[in-house]
């Protein structure tokens, strides 16, 4: 009896942390840390932590989603185009890890489009045409997978705005997407999964102010 108890406690010891909502706790700490990290060193630490969580769990896509986002933020802290590319490629690899866990996910597809959108901006002259097709395809696919994903509509709006600016055409299309995103951000309930992405509401409002209410 005693021996059994000791054995049981031993097992409990080993799994204690897991049972204690380790994933929730770790994500709860690292998601905001990823958004707030203001230097490369801190951000790299958070990304590493997110990657560890993803690798240890093996069946969660969210850690990879935020790790990829972290690499995108990292690329924004760097001047050199080569270095930017290095982190954006890492971001794409990390999205692929997430997709291996959960194929055909609207949020991951949106992130893929977002990363390629930034890759495009690294060298618009030579990448513009090839990447714009890829980016639009990603956002279209993301919207098809989940028509209520506000981030897909928001980023689609940014991309349409960029294209319209380049072509010197109107912003109606872009504003349509942005307003759609705004409605979705306010109407659609928070997701059941507390770690699913929620970001983008403020940026959407700012974009609407800048693009659609500017004049």
């Amino acid at each position, binding site marked *: 009896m005693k021996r059994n108890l000791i054995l049981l406690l031993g097992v409990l010891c080993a799994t204690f942390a897991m049972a204690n909502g380790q994933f929730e706790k770790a994500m709860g700490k690292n998601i905001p840390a990823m958004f707030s990290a203001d230097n490369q060193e801190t951000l790299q630490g958070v990304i590493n*932590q997110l990657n560890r969580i993803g*690798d*240890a769990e093996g069946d969660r896509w969210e850690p990879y989603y935020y790790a990829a986002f972290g690499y995108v933020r990292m690329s924004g802290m760097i001047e050199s185009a080569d270095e930017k590319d290095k982190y954006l490629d*890492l971001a794409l690899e990390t999205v692929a890890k997430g997709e291996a866990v959960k194929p055909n996910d609207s949020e991951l597809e949106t992130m893929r489009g977002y990363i390629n959108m930034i890759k495009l901006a690294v060298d618009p002259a030579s990448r513009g*045409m090839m990447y714009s*097709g890829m980016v*639009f395809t990603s956002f279209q696919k993301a919207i098809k997978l989940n028509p209520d994903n506000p981030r897909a509509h928001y980023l689609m709006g940014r991309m349409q705005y960029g*294209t319209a600016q380049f*072509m010197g055409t109107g912003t109606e*299309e872009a504003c349509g997407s942005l307003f759609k995103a705004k409605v979705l951000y306010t109407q659609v309930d928070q997701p059941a999964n507390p770690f699913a992405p929620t970001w983008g509401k403020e940026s959407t409002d700012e974009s609407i102010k800048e693009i659609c209410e500017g004049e």
Partner: protein
Amino acid sequence: MKGLLTTTLLFLTCFSYGQVTISGQVADKSGEPLLGVNVYLKGTYDGATTDINGEFSFESYEVDSLILVASYIGFHTSELPIESKSQKLNFILKEEISHLNAVVITAGSFNASDESKREVLKPLDIVTTAGATADIPGALNTLPGTQTVGETGRLFVRGGDGRETKTFIDGMLVHNEYSPSAPNTPGRSRFSPFMFKGTSFSTGGYSAEYGQALSSALVLNSKDVAENDRTDISLMSVGADISTTQSFENSSLAGKVQYTNLTPYFALVSQNLRWNKAPQEYNGNFAYRWKTSKTGMLKVFTNVSQSSMDLYESDIRNPEIDLPVVVSNDYLHFNTSYRELLDDKWGVRTGISFTRSNDFASLDQSSIDQNLSGFHTKVTMDYQHSDRLALVAGAEMIGRSLNQTLNDGESFYQEFDERIGASFVETEMFASSALAFKAGVRVEHNNLNDNIALDPRLSAAYKTGEHSQVSVAYGQFRQAPATQITLSDKASLHEKATHYIANYQWLSEGMSFRVEVYEKKYDQLAKYTNIYDPGTFQFTGGGYARGLDLFWRDSKTVKNLDYWVSYSYLNTEREYKDFPGSYTPSFASNHNFSVVTKKFFDKLKSQVGVTYSFASPRSYNDLNSEGFLNGRTPAYHDLSFNISYLYSSQVIIHAMVNNVLGINNIFGYEYASTPNENGVYASRPITPAAKRFIFLGVFITLSKNKGINQLPNL
């Protein structure tokens, strides 16, 4: 009571048990500490990121994991078993050699691809170069190592004849890759640049995988599965085309039909030639792409075309007499390739290509009718032993069946059936990310002369700094002699060339510079046994080419302005055909220079391109003076201009003018075969059919995806 105490103690142990501090340092091989390394216990959340001193430290309660992992971009992930909990754990990470950091062997080659930023060219550059008329060889002719030979438009590389450059699509050889053109007008490649995602133009020292090319290999890699449905319509001053692409889950299907007719253009712009029927061409393309698995790709491509023209050429001796000239060509090229990774080390590539080309040309009463059937099959195995060692081995069969009927009152028939079997093996080794070697050998057997030949190829590259590298290459190359020679003497020996190349390259963001010196030796060139009888040969000719190539590109200094400057110095002589000794052939010029500029004007939504090309005088055989090849043409100049205007996201208007200044370029002189009554050979200059070529086009794209238009095609 005792039981409770035990339980409490156990719980306490639970929290303190295994709580250890794990610390240590991570450095690279040279002892330099690494910042940002992810160090963690395998399978757990517990870990840390190294600081500026490469140090890490963290606490863990985990009891299961006894393996510490260090993972860092650009380095191999390393694992250490934890033996003693108090011990400091130090990692030395080994650098991973990847396309991001590894030195690239660049001697002899120019690559254009979207993906790597270390390429000096982009695929788009090929199609936006003024003067190139969206023709791949046209654009590559602005690079160093090429000699302008304006009357053909082909790639003459480093003292080599145009036929010494061979084109490969997805690894498969293409025969007769140029469309027939009007006399003294540059011929265009049959393959549109927008079909390809990557172009590698090698001016020497290329891989053992490519054979039957003495001077240069143009390796084109076609695009993968298309991601968007689209339909493109082009209306041009010279014709029209329509193409459509349908994309499916893992495959895509594309088709294009094109009709070209120069009649309306010739009616507007006066020509030096008198046309009975202006050049006209029907051209159809079909492409199927299937992603057979995550790593597998099947590509099928077919090109069919039919072209003809009919004109009058004046007799050299009696310019008032017009002689009818008829040229026609039926062409079919079929190309299929498949690649797949068998596991994480082995990959296989295989393909079949087939070309059929029927050419007919007549001048007055004499005609030539030539039928070519060519095929190429190839299997290649790729073995990636590690990031430091890779091996490629393959076998291929190249066949050409050619027959020719000459009709000059009586008819004369000749044919040959050539089969070249070859195998090659090549290894690439990285001593470090800064030092790479490549060694290969190619063995060829040719059924016509029953010779077995062995050609070694060697190259190496060393990174001398963050932005710079040096690279060297050596290789032996061989190629069947010109068709006419093989027809006359089926057991002809193959011509040989030996290349020695040294290259320095400096590449930084938006700027690149390269300089290359080379020495090329020709052997076994076919010489007429008797210079007045081009029927029997001896393979004792030879020659050399040596020179210097310079390239500078800058897209950074001025916003939206991109330009490159190329200069080639060439010194070459050869003894072949009817040459009575060693002479500089008429296609070679000592100095070639070109400047290509492209500027995008945001406000005008237009890209404007200007290209200037110069070639120093070429030799020609002046029959009215003593000696051989002693005539000199004037220098060649061309200033070309193009503009692409984005009318809307789906409509582009494109205009182009070649030779804006209207310079009277003379490529050489042709002479009557017999002297007139005064003993003088009548002659006339070889000049373009018109001083300028003007092109106008409207390109419309219909796609659900608004971001897509034909700009990449222009």
